[in-house]
């Protein structure tokens, strides 16, 4: 078979991404149709920058999801082929030299890497890793940052001094050093990441409990069942998350343990949360300091509301604008961090298709072969760019009123 020309490659990729285009068009069309009723999200569609950003981000989200559903990927991202090593984009696929496989997709659209794996499929699969970890890790960082930042700002005094000192301590730590110290097999063996996870993952439960209790404590008949249900569900998830079979923490018997997170992923997750939390803490604290001087906070105090009600229901909702903007930026930053980890081969398994690891492998032969390193690099660039543009659009729109 003849190798594909560049035009054919582009056409085939665009064709493979059909589900993504459908998803994108549907989302954007629906959003624009109802934009006046969608609040800040709707207003995003008034800003060209925000729209471009949103489009880029959603492109990767759909690619990741449909990729994981096996609608896009052409070859297994891990399977190697001796005949495809470093082959340029558009090369016809064969498992071994001169042995075309009639069942498989006939081409490596973006070529093969140094082990003969399909670059295109790896980029798509890598998207799924990022889309799973980055927003979730950022969300956890926000939980931690919010749960600590609000009281620091609200109570001030020694609590604030202490927490701020801790935050500055972590911020003064060079991130890369922290990763090197935390994300090594030896440290994983000691179980420290598991303990850290055990501490950090409590925050969402604390957060939800306090949130609901402060709101409904005047109505025990509503409060008690709701709270019990929420704590039960979250608690179970929490225990399943932290307990590992034959790991450092074996809390749940295995028949109750819903899932196990591989140690490598867990430690990556924990480190990323750990690195992001202090910054979120500082942002939340700054905004809360400002909002707490408002009269509606004083009004809540004069009717005898509890401190947590004020923090979570009077202050937090009014801080949401800047926090949402920062969330987008931070997901981008987390994506970069994940890439850094992959680039240094920390945490994730070496054959993992995540973009950082792929760039790292590709760079070794960079002066001769560009195609293994460039696609993941551009993928990462476009996702983070999209997130930044989205954040910019959101910021602009939320400042408008």
């Amino acid at each position, binding site marked *: 078979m003849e190798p594909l020309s560049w035009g054919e490659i582009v056409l085939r990729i665009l064709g493979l991404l059909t589900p993504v285009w459908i998803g994108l068009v549907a989302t954007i069309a629906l959003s624009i149709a109802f934009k006046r009723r969608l609040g800040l999200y709707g207003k995003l569609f008034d800003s060209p920058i925000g729209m471009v950003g949103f489009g880029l981000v959603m492109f990767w989200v759909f690619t990741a999801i449909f990729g994981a559903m096996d609608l896009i990927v052409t070859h297994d991202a891990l399977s190697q082929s001796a005949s495809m090593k470093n082959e340029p984009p558009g090369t016809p696929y064969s498992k071994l030299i001169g042995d075309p496989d009639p069942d498989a997709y006939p081409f490596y659209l973006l070529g093969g890497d140094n082990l003969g794996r399909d670059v295109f499929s790896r980029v798509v699969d890598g998207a799924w890793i990022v889309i799973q970890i980055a927003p979730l890790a950022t969300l956890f960082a926000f939980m931690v940052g919010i749960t600590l930042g609000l009281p620091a700002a609200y109570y001030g005094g020694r609590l604030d001094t202490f927490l701020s000192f801790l935050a500055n301590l972590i911020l003064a730590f060079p991130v890369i050093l922290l990763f090197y110290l935390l994300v090594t097999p030896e440290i994983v063996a000691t179980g420290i990441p598991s303990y850290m996870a055990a501490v950090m993952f409590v925050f969402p439960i604390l957060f939800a409990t306090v949130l609901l209790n402060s709101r409904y404590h005047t109505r025990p008949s509503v409060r008690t069942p709701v709270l019990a249900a929420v704590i039960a569900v979250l608690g179970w998830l929490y225990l399943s998350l932290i307990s590992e079979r034959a790991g450092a923490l074996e809390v749940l018997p295995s028949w109750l343990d819903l899932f196990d997170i591989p140690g490598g992923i867990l430690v990556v997750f924990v480190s990323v949360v750990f690195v992001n939390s202090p910054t979120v803490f500082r942002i939340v604290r700054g905004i809360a300091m400002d909002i707490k001087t408002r*009269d*509606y906070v004083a*009004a809540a105090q*004069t*009717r005898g509301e509890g401190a947590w009600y004020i923090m979570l229901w*009077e202050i937090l909702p009014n801080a*949401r604008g800047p926090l949402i903007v920062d969330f987008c930026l931070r997901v981008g930053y987390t994506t970069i961090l994940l890439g850094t980890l992959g680039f240094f081969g920390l945490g994730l398994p070496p054959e993992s298709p995540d973009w950082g690891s792929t760039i790292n492998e590709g760079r070794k032969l960079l002066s001769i072969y560009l195609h293994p390193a460039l696609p993941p690099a551009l993928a990462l660039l476009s996702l983070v760019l999209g997130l930044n543009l989205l954040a910019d659009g959101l910021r602009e729109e939320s400042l408008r009123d």
Partner: protein
Amino acid sequence: MTAWDDDGPILEIENLSISFFTRAGEIPAVMDFSCTVRPGEAMGLVGESGCGKSTVALGVMQDLGVNGRIVSGSIRFKGRDLNEMSADELRRIRGREIAMIYQEPMASLNPAMRVGRQLMEVPMIHEGVSEKEARARALEVVADVKLPDPERILRSYPHQLSGGQQQRIVIAMALMAHPSLLILDEPTTALDVTVEAAVVELVKDLGKKYGTSMLFISHNLGLILETCDRICVMYSGEAVETGSIWDVFDRMRHPYTQALFRSIPLPGADKNARPLVAVPGNFPLPHERPPGCNFGPRCDYFVDGRCDGQEIPMVPVAGDDRHESRCVRVDEIDWDAPPEAGARHAATEPGDVVLRMDDLKKYYEVAANSLFGGGESKVIKANESISFEARESETLAIVGESGCGKSTFAKVLLGLETATDGEITLDNRSIGDVPIGRRDTKTVSDVQMVFQNPFDTLNPSMTVGRQIVRALEIFGVGETEAGRRARMLELLDLVKLPREFADRMPRQLSGGQKQRVGIARAFAGGARIVVADEPVSALDVSVQAAVTDLLMELQRTENTTLLFISHDLSIVRYLADRVAVMYLGHIVETGTTEQIFAPPYHPYTEALLSAVPVADTRVQKKSVVLEGDVPSAMDPPPGCPFQTRCRWKHKVPGNRCETELPPYRDLSDGHRSLCWLDDAELAAMEPVIRTAAE
């Protein structure tokens, strides 16, 4: 600037229209505005916020920002059209020929540049003088604006000066190049009344001394009366009436002007016998103005077909000098008819004492640094021996300038802070050292508060209804969600808001409406004592009366004790039964309203009375101008707290004022004053405000 004869007007604005172009479309901010300022004349521009006053000023300065544009009309300065000048020509005029002063002095000064530099810049740019000469000039002008120690002031950064001093620097900067026109946009709104009085005095004097014409913008009619020769009243982007001060104040010929005067408390108004007449409705937003007369929907004289038929032109008022009005019915309305008597009420009799404060003290300790490195702490004496009692259904006003401890006192009463010393008793229960967290629901719901800033008083991300329901929940009112919702709707009725507002977000409400919601929330638990901290001072003049009215009506029906905190003696005189005047943490004088407003005064009360501008041409005030600023509560003066600014001090033998804290003296029944002055001196005091016989 040659082709200009000295007798022509300095500034001539003709049919000026200015629009802002936003995404929502064109917003006309000023329409068909004309006015003339002659040499040496002071023109007052008065109107509520958002009516376009500042836009006119910025239009004159040709500085409307990226989205503002002059749509039509001309602005001639000394005969030359500013609209047609090049950027370079404009730059030569700005600062040299026309100078501008705005509301926030701190914001108008560059925080990272020494005051001296900012002043010297003006002559250096415009006249190319040397640094040395510029400095000499700056010194001179700083002395002119009566700032002490000009050398030191020139070396300071703006943040090292007090608000009053900063505003004087801004004025000095404007006068550096001896401009022929000075535009002042609410120059004293951010200042305390006594400081305001001094600044206004200064502006008037300097205006005379330099022969500068002025365009003085304010929402305060009293201030305009004190400073200007002519006035132009604006409403919703248009000038509605213009003329000499005397014509407009005494023979007004526009229904809006009339309504405005009837809604502000002037001496003689009385909440029971002669209540204020509130202007109904709200100020229209620029994009929802009615057809025809903008004031139509709120006007008592509105006639279908004529008032909303066509654009209403300005028409001269027969017989007066350059007096014009934008009303089609000028000649038909009987301008001398007395206002329709509002609902009169019998004065309520105060009941039992519900709240008693006894020698309350509140000190704050501020530490230099908390965790690392210690540092000695300082004590701020926010409240010193506050004693008074308040009865049921009574309105007790607490008067004083910012920083005198009014808000601290409210915080202690509400339990947000605990008293350092002293006693607060509510119905014989001591609550002075019970923080709000440990108060029972009854106590909490009994003592509630209405806040000052309407834009801050409601949580922006919760519906109006939800916020009231939450208060009901907390106060334990109602058994079920449905019961509470029903009660919430009743509360909305009570504060005269439509029930649909329950599901609105606060941003969809106007300032006055938000304030009503705040009042509903405060009364949700059947409050018996309501602390109202300047509840109307941030509202537009025309809605102030309505909100005040509402507060008093609720007070009457609920037999509430109202603690009305304010700096504005006019409104206090109108609605208070008793008054306590505070200065630097002390109550310096208490008594019934009549006692406070008639001599003998405490020297501070006297100054305060004289400082409050009164919008009534018949009133003659004795001028008592206070020097300097309120001392910092961090190091108060020894002896009498007022001794640094008191003009009576020398009448007290020895230097007791400077060494010993004076005792509370009973002047007549219940009238007490914190002063060393003896009876003879007190008896010799003259009234500050005198109304000329009608």
